């Protein structure tokens, strides 16, 4: 079986230590996670967690079932095969001089990204999209010199009205 990226979306109780339990499970079972993002959901007291796991489908199914065994985890779905919207946010601080600033701004425009901070030697860019888009923008900006990058990891929902 081949290793691919899987997107798991989980509803978890918003209680102290829950993230620790999840992280501990990944470490203990040697599951390979690429990103993990967690924040509020539409249910009071529950958070929605999106995690990208690399593995073959049997391994990822094991991850899903082990996660579901945690008492504070209410539901876990592997939505990889479903029609979904997946987004990631990145903040990129890039070196900018008087001569490169306008070129950077053009690139930022093409990617429909925003400049959120301007300083004498740098620009900070905010960009949202899927990982490929973020990677491409980063690739183009690398030539100017990247000072700092912060990425959120993927968050995802299935398309359509079902929940």
């Amino acid at each position: 079986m081949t290793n691919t990226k899987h997107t798991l979306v989980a509803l978890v109780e918003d209680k102290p230590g829950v993230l620790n339990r999840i992280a501990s499970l990944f470490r203990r079972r040697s599951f390979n996670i690429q990103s993990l993002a967690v924040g509020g959901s539409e249910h009071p007291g529950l958070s929605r967690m999106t995690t990208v796991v690399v593995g073959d489908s049997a391994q990822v199914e094991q991850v899903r079932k082990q996660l579901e065994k945690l008492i504070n985890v209410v539901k876990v779905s592997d939505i990889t095969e479903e029609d979904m919207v997946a987004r990631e946010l990145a903040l990129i601080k890039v070196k900018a001089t008087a001569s490169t600033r306008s070129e950077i701004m053009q690139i930022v425009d093409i990617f429909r990204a925003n400049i959120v901070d301007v300083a004498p030697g740098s620009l900070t860019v905010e960009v949202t999209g899927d990982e490929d888009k973020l990677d491409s923008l980063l690739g183009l900006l690398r030539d100017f010199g990247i000072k700092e990058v912060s990425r959120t990891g993927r968050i995802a929902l299935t398309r359509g009205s079902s929940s």
Partner: protein
Amino acid sequence: MKKTGAQILCESLVKEGVEVIFGILGGAVLPIYDTFPQYPQLRHILVRHEQGAAHAADGYARVTHKAGVCIATSGPGATNLVTGIANAYMDSAPLVAITGQVATPVIGKDAFQETDITGITIPIVKHNYLVTDVAELAKTVKEAFHIAQTGRPGPVLIDIPRDVQQAQKDFVYPDKLDLPGYRVVSRGHPAQIKKAAKLINEAEQPVIIAGRGIIISQAYDGFKEFAEKAQIPVAHTLLGLSSFPGNHILDLGMMGMHGTPCANMAVQNADLLIAIGMRFDDRATGNTKEFAPHARVIHIDIDPAEIGKNIPTEVPVVGDIKNVLTALNEQIERKEHVAWLSQIEQWRYGHPSLEIRQSDELLPQYIIQQIYEATQGDALVVTGVGQNQMWAARYFVYTKPNSLISAGGLGPMGFELPAAMGVKVGCPEEVVWCVAGDGGFQMTIQELATLTQENIAVKIAIINNGYLGMVRQWQELFYGRRYVDTKLWNPDFVKIAEAYDIPGLRVTRREEVIPAIQKAMEYPGAFLIDFLIEPEENIYPIVPPGESLARFFEPSKPEVLEGKL
């Protein structure tokens, strides 16, 4: 009327039907202990080490089918429970471990005897709690018992800071649970059961692998009906022994590393495996790539995460085994499997390693066999870990349901004495034999004091070879007989027992075995026999680690082998 946290804890334990608590006190649980005299229905058994408390509660839980309770103070008291909690987790035993914690204002300040026991135990508990508000305490205890005892059982730890034990609150025991993330599938899916029945009805060489889940579900009758109706031979995991009568014609004994040749050969040649309440542990399967190469697999278990974890499964059935077997029994056909069963009978005999040598040496196999003869199987056998455990598994015939209590998954030496203590407290009418190794016995030997203080009549058989025997066997077979640090200087165990006010006997010769066992059985209290056995006796057959189950190794010394088991 307001009650203290300590009283709320005790009230909640009473509501849960708790009768016995194993523990040791310390600063952070003093408010709880100070409350115990108000609750005489809670019997507290003072152990000598917290590991003993956890193993005792585990043993108690396995034979009573309700949660065992242990209690320890913060810091070292809590960390000493860890081995026992890990063991209960690996073997799916319901355990509620209560620990004291430093007061909430000093948590995180590295206070005296502060340890993050909830953090430490995350990977080895079904769930755990740090209770920081007395208003949450009753609800937490209710949840803890529910989680520990339902579904696939396991340990739950409740950490209670000292100030929460002293804080006051009205006691209201909740009648409802709020656990949105906890679901137990009790009934198997009808479509899956139908698929399973079809495979069973079509199989020509089926084998059942019986695990401890059958015992946990108390599905003995339905399981026997299942095996008999379809005439399917039964191989056991170590912890599956005593789920099916060991003297039954369909019983193959234990499979795996030290399994019987007929169990291993049957599994390797099966066209269908029906795995029930077991988890394909490596000691049972040998090399998984070469495991049962011709078999389709049905796996019945209450834990969905066990399905496909180690072995690919064609038909999973998730549910309580008792319910699943009841449904399956209606759909399976009566079969005979004459050719298959006669093939298995051929594997059953002609293996020198199964037979007990006629010899002047004191052999462990003979001792276990004589304990069986003396009790006629009407006893609960609690073992240590290592050779003593394997001899007890192989040479006692488990005819009584749930009569082998052993630490299978974690394998903690020292389990035997405290666990036997808990078993005897849980089943005071039963004869309880503790089969110990001389190495493991010294890891929890201090519980002899608990036996005497609490008048717990456990019969102890030390299988004493003066070695860490299983490790020595591996050194002999796999490390060129280099016995590095496995030879033990041992104390005089009979004198030690005497010092604890427990009578004992030393046995060095074969003819002393039966009288010594008789004497132990006749004595009303705890009794210890130190059997000085042939030091380099091995347990055979052995499947070398990483090998296929079909490649079991047994010594070929037929000239010294006479008589059959």
